[in-house]
């Protein structure tokens, strides 16, 4: 399907870029005139995916986060967040709600659960030692409809 518009954004995995990444995606989809709820859903999902790159993928240093967003026909938004960090051994297990490898008790293990429930589709592919790609999709319903 041909994209009506698309953008590619790369940032280093500094936590200040969590806010920047979701603001940039929000600005990108603004022409679709999303509701406050739709916008919050997408910003939250992007924030989870980008935070995972910072907290997990590049936990021992700074790497590059690749964010791509596309607007397709009929309000379909596809967002991809990719890292070349540590990767995930068992994606199925990682996606289980409450599962977290974070030990200080301050991560809830709900990042993937948020992405899954706030977006229409979520696909996670990962190779240990090579990195992880999260692809999410959501349709912004036209307010006229």
């Amino acid at each position, binding site marked *: 399907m041909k994209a009506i518009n698309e953008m590619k954004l790369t940032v280093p995995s500094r*936590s200040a870029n969590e806010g920047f990444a979701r603001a940039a995606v929000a600005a990108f989809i603004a022409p679709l005139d999303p509701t406050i709820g739709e916008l919050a859903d997408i910003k*939250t999902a992007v924030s989870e995916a980008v*935070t995972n790159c910072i*907290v997990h993928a590049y936990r021992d240093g700074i790497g590059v986060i690749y964010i791509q967003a596309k607007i397709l026909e009929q309000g379909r938004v596809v967002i991809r967040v990719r890292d070349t960090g540590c990767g995930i051994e068992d994606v199925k297990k990682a996606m289980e709600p409450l599962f977290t490898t974070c030990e200080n008790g*301050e991560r*809830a293990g*709900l990042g993937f659960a*948020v992405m899954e429930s706030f977006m229409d589709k979520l696909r996670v592919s990962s190779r240990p030692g090579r990195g992880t790609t999260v692809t999410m999709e959501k349709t912004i319903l036209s307010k006229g409809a």
Partner: protein
Amino acid sequence: MDVQLTVEEETMTAFLSGEIDHHGAGEIRRKIDEMAQRVRPQKMILDFGGVTFMDSSGIGLVMGRYRLLQSFGGALCLRHVSSPLKKVMRLAGLDRIAQIEDTRPGEKQEGKRS
């Protein structure tokens, strides 16, 4: 994001504002815990009235404070939670461990999810 703390009798209130994410959560946690460990309040109110965004880092924030309060027998109360924030909180079942007090002014009070 920012936090203002007040203590009145046995109740400590944390007025949160801005966007709650992993970037800012650490600082907020430290500020709240430093005070809470000193006063050991019977009740802690987290006031989300000024919060414009929250992801699952906010859940970690709430859960961690819940555990801290449990450790000295205090209760946690969440106040002024807007609809988008409530959506994140419900995913984590926070409505089961803490009382979600009321909504923001001008917003409809929603029923509990069955």
